[in-house]
């Protein structure tokens, strides 16, 4: 297992370096003056522009620029806003909101996705299976943009109007965990569908394995064959998929947070984009990409814990 962990760690480093280089290249290496571009339609004070040029070392060669950027990053420096507030300071407090949202989504995803997937797999080819697959098709196809607004309207507003049920707050995070239910589901929507399909495929494939036939030949009940022998194997890819999804959910929270007016990292990002505060956008995206890479790394290590074939490699 030691070798596996070391190999994964060594693989994550060049990916993280490469990703930051890519972000850097996408923003700063494009033709034209990045400062003017970052400022967008705003007219920029030449003094501010010069200060920014200085800050991003734009007069230095590209590789040296990257070196400054990456060393800053290692010290937790995500850059500063036009008004010279560190981006990292901007994110304090907002991180908690995004984490809450992402975990709510993850729990909903795990419970609903694995539940539906197992149900479909055990009813493979029957009406239930077809119905569940149709639901996943819908969940995958309807964009977050649409489910967000529609559920906000239906569950947040109409439910209150027609039935007097005021359970789902439509905006803000003022109602504790309930505030996260609706946005959490919206954020998880597509992931629920993929996890359902993955669960179904995983269990169907596992049930076809030779060791399942062996378990049956041992005289075990179908319940035990599925519940112990098949599930333990089928769950391995699901747990890792779920873990990796945490990073995806955090990165994808931008639209959900914007629709439900949750004051998290995503909404800050949307605002900065709207205000055309380029450096902040770069800083936040870099941060989210790092979270994503770390989440993937943790998942890879988790994989080794779950699968003895890798543990004792």
């Amino acid at each position, binding site marked *: 297992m030691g070798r596996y962990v070391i190999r994964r760690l060594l693989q994550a480093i060049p990916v993280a370096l490469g990703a930051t280089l890519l972000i850097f290249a996408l923003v700063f290496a494009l033709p034209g003056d990045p400062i003017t571009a970052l400022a967008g339609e705003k007219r920029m004070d030449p003094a501010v522009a010069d200060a920014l040029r200085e800050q991003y070392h734009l007069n230095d060669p590209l590789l040296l620029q990257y070196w400054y950027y990456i060393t800053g990053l290692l010290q937790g420096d995500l850059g500063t806003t036009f008004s010279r507030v560190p981006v990292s300071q901007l994110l304090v407090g907002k991180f908690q909101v995004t984490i809450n949202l992402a975990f709510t989504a993850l729990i909903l995803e795990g419970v609903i996705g694995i539940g539906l997937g197992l149900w479909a797999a055990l009813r493979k080819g029957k009406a239930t299976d077809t119905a569940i697959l149709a639901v996943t098709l819908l969940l995958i196809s309807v964009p977050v943009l649409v489910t967000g607004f529609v559920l906000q309207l239906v569950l947040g507003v109409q439910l209150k109007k027609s039935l007097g049920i005021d359970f789902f707050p439509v905006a803000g995070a003022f109602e504790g965990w309930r505030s996260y239910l609706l946005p959490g589901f919206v954020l998880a929507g597509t992931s629920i569908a993929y996890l359902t399909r993955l669960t179904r495929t995983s269990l169907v494939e596992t049930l076809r394995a030779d*060791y399942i*036939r*062996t378990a049956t030949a041992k005289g075990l009940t179908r319940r*035990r064959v599925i519940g112990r022998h098949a599930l333990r194997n089928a769950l391995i890819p699901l747990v890792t998929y779920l873990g990796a999804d945490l990073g995806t959910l955090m990165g994808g929270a931008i639209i959900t947070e914007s629709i439900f007016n949750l004051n998290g990292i995503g909404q800050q990002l949307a605002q900065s984009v709207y205000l055309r505060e380029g450096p902040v956008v770069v800083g936040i995206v870099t941060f989210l990409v790092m979270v994503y890479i770390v989440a993937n790394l943790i998942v890879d290590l988790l994989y080794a814990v779950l699968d*003895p*074939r890798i543990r004792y490699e």
Partner: protein
Amino acid sequence: MKKTAADVLPTEGGLGNEPLLAVDDLHVEFTTRQGVVKAVNGVSYDLRAGETLAVLGESGSGKSVTAQAIMGILDMPPARIPKGAIRFRGTDLLKLSEEARAQIRGQRVAMIFQDALSALNPVFTVGWQIGEMFRVHRGMSRKDAQKRAVELMDRVRIPAARQRVHDFPHQFSGGMRQRIMIAMSIALDPEVLIADEPTTALDVTVQAQIMELLAELQRESNMGLILITHDLGVVADVADKIAVMYGGRIVENAQVHDVYRAPAHPYSKGLLESIPRVDLKGHELYAIKGLPPNLLDMPPGCAFNPRCPYRQDNCVSSEPPLYEINSTRSSACHYWREVLDGSHG
């Protein structure tokens, strides 16, 4: 109250001159996209306690499907058993409830599979998997079951069993894995053991060790052993009698030494002649011409006729019944006399 295997069927007595296990006119078919595949068409054989029956045939001959039908581990659907009986101690297993069959499976009739790596669950230790038999069927504690697992691993001669009981299947060599499979199958002293190509995936030297182990375990426990194989060379030393299968049917039933001396079916003869022999060194090795039959599109008459050197017109027009040659021997060939004589017709 939990049913035990003994409640379902009596353990002793009632046998008299009856065989321990008798397959009678078994038919198995599979519904596929391309149509109905008749995998087993009227197979009958029987097995007595302490006896070893070798079931010989190419892949697709129905030998494994028959074994899975005995175990009751066919997926139904797509499989279906339209006809036939499988009598274990006189009781037709096919007429029992699923619950009752689960009590026989593993405890009274056990099975080992060809590829032990894929047949063992990769995420549980071998000790857990062997011990599961005792925990589930005998209600033993985890600790006692583990102890029994170590004993069994010793019995199948796995070195350092006490340590290795905590290892996972992929940490063992192919031969050791097959020994674990065997340990698991004999855990509850079954009366019948079905070994489906137990040595096919192994090296030749390891093959011999595994066969020796099986023979030894059988002598100790007096269980009936069904040895499924495509390799006639494997069975010579261990089997008492042979059932040769082709295209879902038995084409020859005989005592092992009879077949070796003089086969009564052209297919058995072909199999025998394709084994390399020391005394015939230098001779060209014989190979059966043609391909195994397509189960979706069986040739008319005798299924073997397109590949048969003895073929006459009636082999295409009429299907040969299983001719009784003597009390222990039968052949499904119109020309079994010619085959026995060794003259090519």
